[in-house]
C-alpha cells in the first residue's frame, strides 16, 4: 500500500499548477471562488485557453484531440483546477455527447462535431428529462417519426441546463411505441436553430435562470443526425450517464467550498471572537471536514481501481450520494455562518465588479442563494434515491 503520487504524477501536478497560475484569468477565478455568476463569455474564454493548451478534452482519445490522461491525472486536474478556482467545463458537449459520438457515432459525425466541440463553435445541451419522465427516464414521450430522410420531432424536454446558450441539443426520443419502453428510444443530435424549437426559461428559487424547458413542434431533423442504431438509444444513454455520474461527487469543489466557509467563519464574529473558534460552530466545520476527508479517499480508491482502464461501477453512485450531501452541508454551514445576514438578498453584490460597500462580508451575498440552488445536487444526475437503488441492486443484489 502506498498512498503517495508517483514521481511522474507529482511532476504532472507541478505542470498543472504552473499552467493554472499562468493562464487562469484572475477575474474568472475570483468569480468561481466567490460563488459568483459566470457568463457564457467566461466559460468560452476559459475553454479557449484550455483548448490551446490541448487540455480541454480530458476524456477523449488522442486521435480526436483528447489528452488521454490516466484516471489519476484526471483527478489531479480536477483537484487542482478546483483549488485554483477554474470553472468546471460545461460537460454536455465535451464530457457527455462527445464520448457517445466517439463510441457509437459515424465517421461523418465524428468529423463534424468533435472539432466543433474542441473549438467551442458548438455549445451543447442535454435533452433527457421530460415533465413526465424524471427518475423514470425511460418513460419519455418526445416522439420522432421517420419521414423519408428526416425525423419529425414533437414533444418537450425540461431542466435543460444552460440551454439558453446552446446551439445544439442531444435528445432521447421515442421512435418505437410498440416495444418495451427502453427498447423504443433513439439518440438524436438536433440543431437548436431548426424551426419549431422554443426555449423557455425556468427561474429557480434563488431567482437564477440556469435551466429551461425546450419545446419541439414538428421539428425536421436529418436522419444522419441519428447516433448509432434506431431504437438503441437507451444503451447510449446509459453509457453517457456513467460519465455523468463520475465527477458528480464534486470532491474538489467541496474542498474549495470548505476553504470559502472557513474564510467566512474566520471573519464573522460571535461574541467578539471569530466564529471558527466557537466551540459549537468549530465542531460543525470539523465534522464536515472529516467527512470530506473520508470521501476524498473513497474517491481515490475508485480512481485507483480503474487506473488500469474501464469505468467505475456502482461505487460511484455511493460517492455521488455522500459527496453531494457533504457539499450541501458545507453550503448549510456557510449560510449559518453569516447569521442574520443570510436574510438580505443583495443582488448587486452577486456579480463580480461590484464596487460599493459590501453589506456584510464580501463573500456573503451568494451564500444563501447558493445554499438553496444546491438543493439540486441531490436531485440531478440521477436523484440520490435512484443512486441508492442502483447500489442496492448492483452491489447488494437486493
Amino acid at each position: 500500500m502506498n498512498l503517495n503520487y508517483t514521481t511522474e504524477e507529482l511532476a504532472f501536478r507541478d505542470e498543472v499548477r504552473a499552467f493554472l497560475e499562468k493562464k487562469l484569468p484572475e477575474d474568472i477565478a475570483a468569480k468561481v471562488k466567490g460563488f459568483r455568476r459566470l457568463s457564457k463569455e467566461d466559460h468560452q474564454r476559459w475553454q479557449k485557453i484550455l483548448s490551446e493548451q490541448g487540455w480541454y478534452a480530458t476524456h477523449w482519445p488522442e486521435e480526436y484531440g483528447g489528452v488521454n490522461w490516466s484516471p489519476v491525472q484526471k483527478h489531479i486536474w480536477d483537484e487542482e483546477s478546483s483549488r485554483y478556482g477554474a470553472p468546471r467545463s460545461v460537460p454536455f458537449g465535451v464530457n457527455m455527447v462527445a464520448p457517445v459520438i466517439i463510441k457509437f457515432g459515424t465517421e461523418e459525425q465524428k468529423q463534424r462535431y468533435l472539432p466543433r466541440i474542441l473549438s467551442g463553435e458548438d455549445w451543447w445541451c442535454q435533452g433527457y428529462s421530460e415533465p413526465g419522465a424524471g427518475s423514470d427516464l425511460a418513460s419519455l414521450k418526445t416522439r420522432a417519426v421517420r419521414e423519408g430522410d428526416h425525423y419529425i420531432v414533437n414533444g418537450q424536454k425540461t431542466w435543460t441546463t444552460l440551454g439558453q446558450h446552446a446551439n445544439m441539443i442531444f435528445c432521447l426520443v421515442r421512435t418505437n411505441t410498440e416495444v418495451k419502453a427502453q427498447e423504443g428510444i433513439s439518440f438524436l443530435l438536433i440543431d437548436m436553430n431548426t424551426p419549431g424549437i422554443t426555449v423557455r426559461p425556468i427561474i429557480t428559487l434563488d431567482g437564477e435562470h440556469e435551466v429551461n424547458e425546450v419545446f419541439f413542434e414538428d421539428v425536421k431533423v436529418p436522419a444522419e443526425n441519428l447516433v448509432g442504431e434506431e431504437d438503441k438509444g437507451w444503451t447510449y444513454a446509459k453509457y453517457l450517464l456513467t460519465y455523468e455520474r463520475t465527477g458528480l461527487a464534486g470532491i474538489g469543489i467541496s474542498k474549495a467550498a470548505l476553504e470559502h466557509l472557513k474564510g467566512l467563519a474566520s471573519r464573522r464574529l460571535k461574541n467578539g471572537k471569530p466564529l471558527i473558534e466557537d466551540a459549537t460552530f468549530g465542531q460543525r466545520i470539523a465534522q464536515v471536514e472529516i467527512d470530506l476527508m473520508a470521501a476524498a479517499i473513497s474517491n481515490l480508491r475508485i480512481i485507483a481501481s480503474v487506473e488500469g482502464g474501464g469505468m467505475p461501477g456502482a461505487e460511484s453512485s455511493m460517492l455521488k450520494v455522500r459527496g453531494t450531501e457533504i457539499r450541501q452541508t458545507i453550503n448549510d454551514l456557510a449560510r449559518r455562518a453569516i447569521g442574520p445576514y443570510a436574510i438580505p438578498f443583495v443582488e448587486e453584490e452577486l456579480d463580480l465588479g461590484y464596487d460599493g460597500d459590501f453589506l456584510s462580508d464580501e463573500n456573503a451575498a451568494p451564500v444563501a442563494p447558493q445554499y438553496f440552488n444546491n438543493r439540486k445536487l441531490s436531485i440531478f444526475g440521477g436523484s440520490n434515491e435512484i443512486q441508492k437503488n442502483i447500489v442496492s441492486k448492483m452491489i447488494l443484489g437486493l
Partner: protein
Amino acid sequence: MDFRLNEEQQMLQDTVARLVRGEYSFEKRLEYSESELGFSADFWKQLGELGLTAVPFPEELGGFGGTGVEVQSVMTELGRGLCIEPYLQSVVLGGGLISQAGNSEQKEQWLGGIATGEVRAAVGLQEPQSFYNLNDVETRAEKSGDGYVLNGRKAVVIGGHCADVLVVSARTSGDSRDADGISLFLIPADAEGIERRTYPTIDGFKGCDLFLNNVQLGPDALLGDEGKAAEVIEYQTGRAISALCGEAVGAMEVACDLTLEYLKQRKQFGVPIGRFQVLQHRMVDMMSELEQARSMAILAASVADEPQSDERRRILAAAKNVIGRSGQFISEQGIQSHGGIGMTWEYNFAHYAKRLVMINHQLGDDDFHLERYAAMLQAS
C-alpha cells in the same frame, strides 16, 4: 387538560384564515413582494380594520388583551398564507417593547396607531458583529444636552424601510456584550442622520440596515430606564419567538400538505411516487417534525406573556430550537420529495421552503438556542 382553542380564539383564527384566503393568492404575494412598499398596504389596512393588529393590546386601545395563544392564532394563518406584512415587527415586537417599557406619553403617542395599523414600527436590535446575541451592542448613545446623540449601525431591520417609528437599542454605558448599559430609543423614521440601505430579503420581505450618524434625540426618545433595556428586549423577543413559532407551524402545515399532495399525484414507473417506501417514510418524518413543532409552539404560547422566569426562558429557547430544525428539515426534504419542480420560482413550495429556512435566521438559530438551553442546565 385541553389543547383546543376556545370559541373566541377559534373565531379569531377563522377570521384571519378567511382574510388570507381571499387576499393572498400566491400570484398576488409575488406582486406585493415586488412592489416598492414590499407588502400589501391594502391587506395591512384590512388587518387593522378587523381589529387584528390590535389583538395583543388592551381594550382601551381597541384590542382584547390577547396573549401568546391569540397572537399565534393570527401568526399561524399569516404563515399559511406566507404573508409578508410587518405584523411580527410592528405589532408584536415594536408594540410589545413600547407597551412594556414606555411611559404614559410614549404609549399614548404610539400604541393607538400601532394597534389600528395606521402607524408601523420596526425594530433594530441586531448589529453587524452581534450575530444573534442582542446584548452585543456597539451603537453608542451619548448624552447631549438633555437628550442623546446616537452613532452606529443596526443590521437587518425587517420593515425598517417603511416604518413610521424605529425602536433601536444603543449602549449608554458598559462594554460590548454587557447586559447592563443597553438602552432603547424611539426614533421617528424621518429623523436627521439616519441612512438606510434597503434590500429585498431572500424570503420575499423587505428590510434595511440602519446607519445612525449623529442622530440627535430629545429626552423623550429614551424608552424605559437608561441602561436597563436588556431584560425588556429579552422578554419581548421571547414573545416574538412564540409568534414566530406560530408562523412557522402555519408554513410547515402548507409545506407538508403540498408535498403529500404531490406524492399522491406525481407518477413515475407507472405508479404514484407515494407508493415508494423511501418517500413514504420521508413524508412520515416530515409530519413528525411538524407535530414536534406544533407541540413546542403550543408550549411557547402558554408562557409567552407569563412573567419572566428560568422556566419561560428554557421553554422559549427549546421552542425556537425545534422550529428552526423542523423548518429546515421540512424545507429540504420537501424539495427532495418534489424533485426539480420543488426548486422553481413558479411553484409555491419553494417560497415556503425559503421562509422556513429564514425563520431559523430570525431571533436566533437552533445552535444559538441550544447553547442558551445548555447554559441553563445544572448538575443535579
